[in-house]
């Protein structure tokens, strides 16, 4: 299997990004495409571990990473693709935007740089599309049962794809103009080109999945309608209720939720209309992004491309160490300072800052008063508490403020409310082991059950729900 000594011979090599001054002029993909030979060499670094932590500890969808690495090393792209697709419905998405917990768990990462698993995965699927392997493959036998999936984000698509291949009739409903959910509207084009989403949707349609867009369940169609036409229903509406900040001045103009800003940009690029009065644009502005996560980083890259005068990103937590923090030992996802392509493009990053007050002029925000904080671990252990540092206040100038502090849970949903579907105390939907809610025949998957999380986790949950639905319908049959 593989190259036994590959990991001792080759170093990790990432393909890298287009030059900064070139890439910030457009919204096209920033990551470069590696040569095939380079990918095979990188795949040769895989040690084919007897206990592959990448596969069984890192990757939420349990991608069989050592086996596709070996196939790639051997040049057997078709076999690699088969293995990849057996676990991953949409490698072209995860291959582009997954933070790759697999690489955090890679055994090589204990004392060297991990294998470029995400990049290998992306190469396999793109090779698959290029070589024509990715043809529509409708199921050989169709079953009579039909399933409605409400929501077309990564979870909804994964459910639809999995159930469709198992022979079920699947209709995916979504309120937006086009299917894709966060994939289409949340993630910036420069990270995930919308042509990639379109390509997948077309493939799924060719395989028999029906997409019904601009349909708001509860408004446009009723639960009863669904109940009569479908044997099972799966909720996959996401958890896009943004977390807000309570500080004086929050009502000032120029303070927006990050997702609103990002969605607008994606719609704009996708040819959808954005009402001029709602437009959020960074051009010529001093932008402050509050929140140090991925959404924040996306706001940075988008702002830079829109022509912001300056971009600052602040985070309430302290600056992580440059390499794996001791609190997240291998094989955990390493907590460490990450510099995204967007960060490289020009922004000031600051840590341990809490926002105290938004200061405005004539109703429009102009700056934010912030204070430095310390994180103090109580003597008895446990989570550290935040303590403001007296006298450390300062003011950051900003006339566009983007709030990227995460999400608090699922948005209001008429089916959930109307049927009194049971929730967990934290607001997510309760489900049993098969992902069924307390209402028989109604399933739930993705962020609605776990809160906002990674695309790959939503997909994992979607696969799990699909398995639950299958089992439920199998049981009903007999």
């Amino acid at each position, binding site marked *: *299997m593989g190259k*036994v*000594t590959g*990991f*001792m011979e080759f170093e990790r090599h990432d393909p890298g990004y287009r030059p900064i001054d070139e890439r910030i002029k457009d919204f096209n993909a920033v990551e470069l495409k590696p040569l095939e030979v380079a990918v095979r060499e990188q795949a040769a670094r895989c*040690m*084919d*571990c*007897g*206990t*592959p*932590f990448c*596969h*069984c*500890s890192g990757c939420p969808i*349990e991608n*069989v990473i*050592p*086996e596709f690495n070996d196939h790639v090393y051997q040049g*057997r792209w078709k*076999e690699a693709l*088969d*293995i990849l*697709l*057996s676990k991953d419905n949409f490698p072209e998405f995860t291959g582009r935007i997954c933070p790759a917990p697999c690489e955090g*768990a890679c*055994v*090589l990462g*204990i*004392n*060297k740089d991990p294998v470029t698993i995400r990049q290998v995965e992306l190469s396999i699927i793109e090779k698959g599309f290029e070589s024509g392997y990715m043809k529509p493959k409708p*199921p*050989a*036998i169709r079953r009579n049962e039909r399933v409605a999936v409400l929501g077309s984000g990564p979870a909804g698509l994964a459910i639809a794809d999995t159930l469709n*291949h*198992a*022979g079920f009739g699947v209709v995916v409903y979504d309120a937006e103009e086009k299917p894709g959910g966060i994939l289409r509207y949340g993630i910036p084009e420069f990270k995930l080109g919308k042509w990639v989403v379109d390509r997948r949707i077309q493939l799924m349609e060719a395989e028999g999945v029906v997409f019904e867009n601009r349909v708001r369940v509860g408004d446009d169609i009723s639960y009863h309608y669904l109940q009569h036409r479908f044997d099972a229903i799966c909720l996959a509406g996401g958890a896009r209720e943004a977390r807000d900040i309570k500080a004086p001045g929050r009502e000032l103009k120029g303070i927006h939720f990050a997702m609103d800003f990002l969605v607008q940009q994606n719609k704009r690029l996708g040819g959808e209309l954005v009402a001029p009065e709602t437009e959020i644009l960074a051009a010529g502005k001093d932008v402050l992004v509050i929140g140090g996560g991925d959404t924040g980083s996306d706001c940075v890259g988008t702002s830079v491309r829109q022509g912001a005068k300056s971009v600052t990103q602040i985070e309430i937590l302290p600056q992580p160490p440059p390499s794996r923090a001791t609190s997240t*030992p*291998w*094989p*955990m996802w390493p907590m460490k300072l990450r510099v995204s392509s967007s960060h490289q493009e020009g922004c000031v990053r600051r840590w341990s800052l809490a926002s105290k007050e938004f200061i405005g002029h004539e109703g429009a925000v102009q700056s934010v008063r912030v204070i430095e904080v310390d994180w103090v671990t109580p003597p008895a252990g446990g989570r550290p508490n935040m303590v403001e540092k007296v006298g450390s206040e300062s003011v950051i100038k900003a006339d566009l403020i983007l709030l990227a502090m995460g999400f608090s849970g699922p948005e209001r949903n008429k089916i959930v409310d109307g049927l009194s579907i049971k929730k967990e105390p934290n607001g997510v939907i309760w489900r049993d082991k098969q992902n069924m809610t307390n209402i028989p025949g109604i399933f739930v998957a993705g962020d609605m059950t776990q809160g906002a999380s990674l695309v790959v986790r939503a997909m994992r949950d979607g696969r799990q729900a699909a398995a639950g639905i*299958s089992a439920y319908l199998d049981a009903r049959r007999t």
Partner: protein
Amino acid sequence: MNGMPSPQGLYDPANEHDNCGVGFLANIDGVQSHRIVSDSIEVLKNLLHRGAVGGDLSTGDGAGVLLQISDKFFRKEAARLKFNLPAVGFYGVGMLFVPQSNVRAACLSTIQKVIQEESLEFIGWREVPTDGGILGEQARAAQPHVMQVFVGGGKWSGPALDRKLYVVRKQCQRRVAEVIGPDERFYVPSFSSRTIVYKGLLMGGQVSGFYKDLNDPDMESAVAVIHQRYSTNTFPSWELSQPFRFLAHNGEINTLRGNINQMQSRENGLASPLFGDDIRKLIPIIDPGGSDSACLDNALELLVAGGRSIPHSMMMLIPEAWGAKYPMGPDQKGFFEYHAGLMEPWDGPATVAFTDGSVVGTLLDRNGLRPARYTITKDNFIVMASEAGVLNIPAERVLEKGALRPGQMMLVDLALKRVIKDKELKSQMSRRQPYRRWVEENKVSVQGLFEAMAPIIPESETLLQRQRLFGYTREDVQILLEPMAAKAHEAVGSMGTDTPLAVFSEKPQLLFSYFKQLFAQITNPPIDPIREELVMSLMTFIGNPSNILLETPQFARLLKLRHPFLSNEDLEQIRGLEIKDFSASTLPIGFPAGGSGEDLDAALERLCALAGERVSAGKTLLILSDRDLAEGLTPIPVLMAVAAVNRHLVRSGCRTGVGLIAETGEAREVMHMALLLGYGATAINPYLAFETIADLAGKKELSVDIGSARAMENYVAALCEGLRKVMSKMGISTLRSYRSAQVFEAVGIDQAVVDRFFSGTASRVGGIGLSEMAAEANARYREAFLNPGADLTFLPAGGQYRLRRDGERHLWAPEAIANLQQAARSGNYALYKEYARLINDQAEKQFTLRGMFKFKPLVPISLDEVEPVSGIVKRFVTGAMSFGSISREAHESMAIAMNRLGGMSNSGEGGEDPARYKPLPNGDSRCSAVKQVASGRFGVTTEFCVNCRELQIKIAQGAKPGEGGQLPGHKVNEEIAKVRHSTPGVTLISPPPHHDIYSIEDIKQLIYDLKNVNPEARVSVKLVSELGVGTIAAGVVKAHADMVLISGYDGGTGASPLSSIKHAGAPWELGLAETQQTLVLNNLRGQVRLQTDGQIKTGRDVVVAALLGAEEYGFATTALVVLGCVMMRKCHNNTCPVGVATQDPRLRKLFTGSPDHLVNFFTFIASEVREIMAQLGFRTIDDMIGRSDCLEMNPAITFWKAKGLDFSNILYRPPCDSPVRCVGKQDHELASALDLKLIPKVKAAIETGKPVSLEHPIRNVNRTVGTMIAGLVAKKYGHAGLPEDTITLNFKGSAGQSFGAWCTKGMTLVLEGESNDFLGKGLSGGKIIVKPFPGATYEAESNIIAGNVLLYGATCGEVYLNGGVGERFAIRNSGAIAVVEGVGDHGCEYMTGGRVVVLGHTGVNFGAGMSGGLAYIYDEHRIFDARCNLDMVDLELVVSKADKAELRGLLEKHVRYTGSRKARHILENWEDQLPYFIKVFPMEYRRVIGQMMKEDEATERAEVIHG
């Protein structure tokens, strides 16, 4: 009388073994005298150390003597008893063990009745005078009443009368048993007109004390066959003592089950004019309840009674090797081939002494695994025994001293008054009939059979579906089949196995997975199937006759198969055969898809009935086929089908002539094939495996670019190699006797199912029945045909050998590894508990037997009442892992940690750097407390042995019990070579057996040797759990081991063939419990400590082990994980990325483990143990040992397959008062060691270095002489020893075994006389000189002066032997120099260094596995190249100046030390004689030496240039 307990718990008397000392004495002229009788008693006394005593320390395991009927004596006795005896030869004497109780009268009257019914004359009874007072307590309790019956033959005399008496005896046995009932025993030691047996549960010396007859001067015989038994049990059994009626056997029949099965299937067909209708009265031929030796005696008795001569019969039962590689003439090959069709070998190590009263002889098995030394005197007397020197015969009287070679036989014909040696005897036998022509003319030839394979084109559309039907996984294809197809070898893996037992797996399991291979441990050795391949054979026949009592050319009408694997073409040829008596019939093996257990049952019944019908209709080739079954049929597990049909045919008496062929898509790996053959298949066509391989080849997915035909041939070659390995593990050489030998145990199958289809196989915990088997087969059917939704582009993952989330589960899951490492590194007990919970909680998902246990608390106590952590950790040891398999950093971390804790670490089998014996400046010690002595003996020097607290004899290891190992040359770096005393770059091979342990008495000797070299160290023996390990352990305890380690099959960190990792051996729970129960039953438990290991991971595991009986607990894999191992399972690649299992300096740098982590870990384990103890209510570990009553099966477990399990056997506690843990010590009998007498005289020399020279007589009972002194020298001076000849010890006599073992530099041992086996074992610098008895008149060079296995594992020193020696001379020598005048078979086997000069005869297979050192052979007759194994060596003339000088120097020394006539002659004619010398030069050694010389030259040149 038979005091053997009935089966109880895990103990089963069926597993008992015995070994022993054996011999015969004869007056060649046939003159009867009392001297022969009294001498035979003397020999028994001198072989006492080869026997054993029981728990009461005075009951022997059994001894006896077989004599001619002494007419003089019996006539005298008859007169006294007032009855008349007919003339000599016309009456018979029955020796009887009859009940002591009042049923005796009924017993005697029945006998009398039978005698009369058989038309013989009843003459009278005689009470045999015995003295029960000298018996041990156990022997006396079981003592029978001994009587003799005299029978007049009427018209019959001699052999004809004996035939009649045979019928009488068989009748008596059956009839008396009916009369006296099951609680009383009746046994007939002998019943003959020619011979009589006096035996009993005695020690050798007690025989004449118990039987007064033997002291009567009128008790005369010309022949005596003697036997001293060493049994693994201590249960008093009078009837299992030997000799039997025709033979005495030192050895073990490994194929017994198969031999009995085949004998049974012949019974219907037996017919002979000599018996007429009487033949039915002999059935069953094999008396039930006998030992393996007794069964062999039964078989011999039948053949001899049937009219064959006794040597002829012996050659049928225990044939020598006669394969293509064996040098043998065509007539003799013809003899063996003809008889191979009649009788499969009774295979195993054996010295047999046999007699019918008119001839007496002896024979050795094909491997020569037992010693047989003989002396013939000028006055026509011969004595043969397991040792030389058993009788004191003055040198002047000796005509010849010799030893039997492997496969050889020797006969004394008292009528001809001469000794007939092997060659003459076999030449005679081979030409009794034109056997060669019979074979040639009658063999059935089939055109095209076993020709080159044709490529096949897989049916790719359905391939995947059919693979799914038979449960194929990606691993089967990529990991198992690919390497076999590409490289013709089985795949190798590492780090044991941690997947659930088949019965706990949620994945549908093949029936094969519920079986575990058995393997040889101690009572017989495994064979090396590579280096000693010449004794092995996979050849097999179809069409065997069942009437073995006749001899006709028709019996050679056989279809011969070279090996049991049929290609598709072969099968078609066979299917289409249209020859008389050879026509085939195909029987589909399927049951209705979705069907229940009853449906499966019914299908099997139908199949058996159909098979019977076809055979009745004249079909002789039954093909059981699961190929292209009709729609709607699920394949019956092929093993089930084969076993059921085989059994049905055996029962109906028509199995012998029928060939049973499995055409199967299910069987693919070696284990599958072994099982099918082991349960009766004649041949196998694994068509789906072939097709899968063809598919791989076609898609270019093999690692080499070869076509499908070549790939399939490789696969078959790998299967053959693997099958030889599986057979050799059990010590079985030929497939003919492996077939239906059933050397497996079932784990997880219901007893009733086993009894019906696999009867005779042990299944000790119950398990699945037919309905579960049907369900698993149906699950595969569904996977294949009823799962349209699934994406069928490839196979399921598998996950047995590498973790896959959708595959088989592993205990070492990432969460467990990560938690354990974090816990140990950070000292975080909470994290440890999280890890322990992941491992311990198997309520939902089961892995191990112990996972099913639940504790039954007594009265809980508070934690502070429990013994402290510091005490508990002292019971922990780390597993034996050699420096070489793991890095120095990892190895030393373990030693330091265990020394800090007061536990023990283990050197493993690769020696140890002496630098580690000195403590580090900070007080830490890197010295391993346990030093391991393994079969390779690498680095086992005297210094190594004296620097430890425990010497551990590794008999087997969990990952590959019964197999040897190999460290390839490229891994033997400078450092490893240094500690192993070998040459860097030269491959090191570990033999499968210890060549000084072929039997239980041998391990007693090795324990004694080790105790001598280091009396302070305890000696332990490491065994692997398998059926019967408890009985082996009992034998080991009787051999005086201080500690016995029972390893689980699942442990093992080293590289091993995957089939061995998965399928050989049993879980430790079974082995430990069986051992505990057997030792307690035997009252042996109190003298020994028990240790267990094998995937022990948590404190709960430790508590379970303690409750089942272990005092100490071993951790290997777990310790490595603590040190950073991430279960890569790639140790065999030397690419361990965390620096644990690698020698690559770049990777070793990455090692981040530390002793601190281990200390944390073991503290955690002990803490968990304490918590459980408090909960259970135990204050000390000692209180907990053996308390299996505190365990029960967890009732909450509802897994569908587990519901048939029953653990009552594991949890059984024998109801006796004997101790359940170690409370005493072994008596090592060191007090009688000769060295103790010598030490006071050499003490000054050791202390001051002032030379000393002593003289002392020596006898064969003086064993291991010089070794204790050597230990003292090494303790003081290390390996450097003393200056040459500081201590000179001169002996006269016959030295006992292990003469001069481990002698160090500065010691010189001179022996005038002869020596037994194991001379110079482990020699570490000493000098040993052996020359004939002063006054001997025989030619030294043509006589045998020392025994087998000399210089085993010697590292340096010199040996000069003025005479020939036995088998395996200088085996595994890595540095000693030796001159000898003739060697037996397998000389210089596995040698890695040193020099050997042989001035005479060499046996076959010289230099097998010899990777280093040089040998010079004086090849007078120019035949050496035919006898040498040329796989690894080149043969050259001695031409270089340096070689000539070396050889000459050695010969000069030989003359100086021994006065060798032959060496002097050669030296005197040096120029003429030199061309007769051949230099044996290992190829690899030459390459390495060449390289070193080049480097030296380069350095010299550089020095010249730069200097």
